[in-house]
Structures are given as structure tokens and as C-alpha cells.
């Protein structure tokens, strides 16, 4: 028996969120006295996984899986679940991993739990803590079926090093057919995405207009951060929809969230609450965001942001 961890890659590089999933898988496996096995698809650079404790890494090498497909990937994972006799599968919460996990639980008739923030509170019954009500609450949830699929919130467990020299096994799997095919992928190049970012710089209506985002982008560049915005900003077309964060937008669980000219409405805070450290820059000391933040600067964003960029660059 082994705990399986799906290790997502993009352009032959593993995603950071998957390293965290592997660390989590290792800790969970230690808890229940099982081995931990990483599953990678078409990615041979397995050495970078050594610090994170896998006992074994299975590389599914199959040209049929060169494009992501929740259906094909799920069926490929089932083959490994069978061969490793695995009852627990861990995934990150990246868009593709969550997509895959949901489908996988449908075809394996298993319990799937997402937004998990901690190791099991007990193994028998198997209970896990997860966020619900868009981060306004936690639930302690019992998983009743034998097979369990677990997706963890990024930055909730962290990277815990456990160097190991995993056994590498490359396998080929006969893929199932699917009439679903990718026609095109449009990607913005160079920018850090909200889902993968350690730091997110976010701005709201306090910025007055889209032309003032140059300084937000410059601050994000300086920090290697992703940019985000409040809902009205994307509704007005100042920024793309993909940057809208909050209860009805993207969730953010970065290490650092910097909110500039954002009032801190309940719907905004709900989506960003699981970020570790929150900084607010706002000229209204009464803005609700000050109640939710760890650090705050009261003042004009148009003065503070350029000054902050300068000081960060001088570091």
C-alpha cells in the first residue's frame, strides 16, 4: 500500500504546489505507516523531487498524455492506484489538479475532499480539516469510503524537507480514448499567476483608473508577485476577469497579500482570508480592511507605492 501523490508539471517542470502536496503526502503516509509514491506524467527530471521524501516515483511516459485531459489523466492514475494498491491520492489545488481530482473521484466512487488545510485530526475515523463558506469557516469532515482523494490548499502545509532517494520507475500506459481535444492554448507570457504566486499585489477602486496600474505592475515585478484586483475593477474593465479575486472570483492563498486602495468588503475578504500575511495600504483609517490585515499603512497609495518600490529596489 502506498499513498499516491499526483505531481503536476508544466513544460517539463514540476509545480511548486506539487512539492507541497508531496511533503503533505509524506507526512500523512508516516502517520498511517505507509510508503509514499509520487506520480509524474511525461517528466523525467525527477531528481528535483529528492528533498521531499518520496519512497518511489512513477513516471508515466506516454505521448497520448502530452496534453492535459482530466479524463485520460484520471484513467492513467487509476492504473497506478491499482498497481500500487493505493487507497489515498493527494493532489494540489491548482486548477488542473482540482479538475482531475473531481473527475477521478467520480470514476472511482470515492470520497473527495478539497480545500484541506491540515493533516488528519484522526485516522480512525478519518477526519480532515478544510475551509468552507469561502474561508469564513472550517469544517472537520469525516471521509467514510475506503478510497480517499484529498486536495490541499496551497501554502497551508508548507514545504517540509525530508531528503530521500526515491526508486524511479518509468511505465507506459495504454490510454483510453476521448473525443475531447484541445484546439489552442493562449497564455500570457512572463507574468506570475495568482494560483502559483507566493506574493500577490492587489488593487481596487482607490486607484481611480486603469492607467494607474503601471505602479502596481512595477511593485509586483519588484517582488516577483502576481497582480490581482477587486471585483468592481474587473467589472469596469480596468483589469481582466482573471485578476478578480474574492468570494465570487479567484481564491488567494498566498504567503503575502498586499491590498492597495481596496476597502475590504466581506466578499473580497472571504476570498483572500486564507493568505498568510495581509498588508493594507489605504487612505481611510476606517476602511474595514484594517480589521483583517496584519500590517497597514494609512495614506495615499499614489505616494506610498512608488516610495515602497524604490525602497524595495534599494534593498
Amino acid at each position, binding site marked *: 500500500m502506498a499513498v499516491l501523490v499526483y505531481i503536476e508539471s508544466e513544460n517539463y517542470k514540476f509545480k511548486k504546489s506539487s512539492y507541497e502536496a508531496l511533503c503533505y503526502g509524506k507526512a500523512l503516509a508516516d502517520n498511517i505507516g505507509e510508503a509514499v509514491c509520487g506520480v509524474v506524467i511525461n517528466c523525467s527530471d525527477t531528481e528535483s523531487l529528492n528533498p521531499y521524501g518520496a519512497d518511489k516515483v512513477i513516471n508515466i511516459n506516454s505521448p497520448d498524455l502530452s496534453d492535459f485531459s482530466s479524463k485520460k489523466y484520471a484513467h492513467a492514475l487509476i492504473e497506478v492506484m491499482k498497481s500500487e494498491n493505493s487507497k489515498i491520492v493527494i493532489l494540489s489545488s491548482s486548477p488542473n489538479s482540482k479538475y482531475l481530482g*473531481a473527475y477521478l473521484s467520480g470514476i472511482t466512487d470515492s470520497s473527495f475532499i478539497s480545500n484541506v488545510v491540515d493533516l488528519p485530526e484522526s485516522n480512525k475515523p478519518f477526519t480532515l480539516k478544510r475551509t468552507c463558506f469561502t474561508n469564513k469557516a472550517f469544517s472537520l*469532515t469525516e471521509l467514510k469510503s475506503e478510497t480517499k482523494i484529498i486536495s490541499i490548499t496551497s501554502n497551508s502545509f508548507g514545504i517540509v524537507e525530508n531528503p530521500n532517494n526515491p526508486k524511479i520507475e518509468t511505465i507506459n500506459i495504454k490510454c483510453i480514448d476521448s473525443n475531447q481535444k484541445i484546439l*489552442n492554448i493562449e497564455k500570457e507570457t512572463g507574468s506570475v499567476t495568482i494560483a502559483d504566486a507566493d506574493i500577490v499585489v492587489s488593487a481596487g477602486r482607490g486607484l481611480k483608473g486603469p492607467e494607474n496600474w503601471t505602479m502596481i505592475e512595477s511593485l509586483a515585478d519588484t517582488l516577483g508577485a502576481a497582480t490581482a484586483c477587486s471585483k468592481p475593477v474587473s467589472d469596469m474593465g480596468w483589469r481582466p476577469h482573471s485578476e478578480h479575486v474574492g468570494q465570487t472570483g479567484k481564491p488567494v492563498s498566498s504567503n*503575502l497579500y498586499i491590498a492597495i486602495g481596496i476597502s475590504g468588503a466581506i466578499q473580497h475578504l472571504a476570498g483572500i482570508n486564507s493568505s498568510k500575511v495581509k498588508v493594507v495600504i489605504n487612505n481611510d483609517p476606517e476602511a474595514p480592511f484594517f480589521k*483583517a490585515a496584519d500590517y497597514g499603512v494609512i495614506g495615499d497609495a499614489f505616494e506610498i507605492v512608488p516610495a515602497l518600490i524604490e525602497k524595495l529596489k534599494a534593498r
Partner: protein
Amino acid sequence: MNILVCISNVPDTTSKINFIENDSNFDANGVQFVINPNDEFGLTKAVWLKDSNQANVTALTVGDSSVEATLRKCLAIGADKAIRIDCPAHDAYSVAKEIEAHCKETSYDLIICGRESIDYNGGLVPGLLAGLLDFNFVTNCVSLEIEGSKATFSREISGGTEISECELPLVIGSQKGLVEESDLIIPNMRGIMMARQKTLDVIPAQGINPKTHDKKFSKPTAKSEVKLVKADELDKLIDLLENEAKVL
């Protein structure tokens, strides 16, 4: 073409979240329930497909009689009929299994769910349902065109969009972008009057056992007070982020 729109009935986004019965249950007292925002985009899209693709739109919720007001709203927005599967929504698995059973009796070409609900927000039902029914599946869906039996759609991926096509049947997880927020259909008087004439069927549940159980809820612990830094002392902010919070 037959379209099923799965509707989750959720607390309004401004709701204060509280728990009762020793923190084992959500306190619905005084809470206003609404159509899950992600489902609302999907429902509007379905109503558009009525015109462009001669589709028939059914809105469905798994829940007790308290969800009927939300289903009536779906009828007023433009769904042709509504169905309530009569049992509490225990967990994503039991909800998906109940919907699966209905889909085996009535066949649908397209099933529209929301990307996730804003209450238990697992983002689980659409994928589970697609897996159970062996349908094609796309979530975080931001565009969808249907021609004959072929669907062309895109989904949001990290840092971009991916455009794909497939044969129907298909399950989608909808979100903002599938239609714009300004295009959401708001029920008017005529729609509300017409909704009264439409059928809302209540069908018995299969009685599926859930696979997960929320045993106890809790709320995040109160935060310590914000540390304020003066606007002309930004070095201090950098120092705090670097050495105290250790996030730089």
C-alpha cells in the same frame, strides 16, 4: 437539445456564518438564500441557448422544500421547468449520485453546474457527475458554443485560457466570463408571472448514503490587531515583512 442546470441554493454573500447544535450545523436563521453566483452565469447561458439552439432548459436542485423559492427564481429567469429532488443535500457525492439517477431517466445533452458553490464550496459536484455519467467535462468554463452535437469551449487555466472541442454530452462548471455580469438575466414582472404557470416537479430521492460527513464547524480565530506603519517609515514595513513575518 436538452439542458440541465444544477442549482445550488446558498447563503447570500453578505451572510454572517454561524453554527448551531454544538457547532454541528449551519445556522440558517435569518439568512437570505440565493442562486449560487457561479450557477447564475450558467443559467443565463442556458437561457440564451434556448433561442440560439432551440434548447429546453430544466433547473434542478437537490434539497428540501426550502429551496423552492430559488427554483421559482430560475423559472422567472427563463428555465422551462424545475425539478427538486426531495432530500437534504448531505454531501457532494450523494448530490451527484441523485442527479446521476435522474439523468439516467431523462437524457440531457448538456449539464451546466457552477464551478463551485460558495457554501461548502468543494467544487466537486460537476466533476463527480461527469465521472459517474462518463460524460465529457470542463470546469472553470468561460465560453461555450454548440453546433449540432459538437461543443467548442474554453476554460481558464493558470495564466491563460485553453480552447477545446468535444462531442456532446458534456458537463460544464460555469463561472463569470461564460456570460458577463452585466448580461445576467434579472427576472422581470412578466417572467415572474410566467414562472407561476411552469411546473416545479418534486421527485423522490434514491436515498444515497453520503461518503463524507461534516462533524464540526469552527470559525477562524480572531486576529490580533493590525500593526500600523507610518507612511514615511516604509523601511520599517519592509523590515517587519522580512524579519517578523518572514514573507519577503
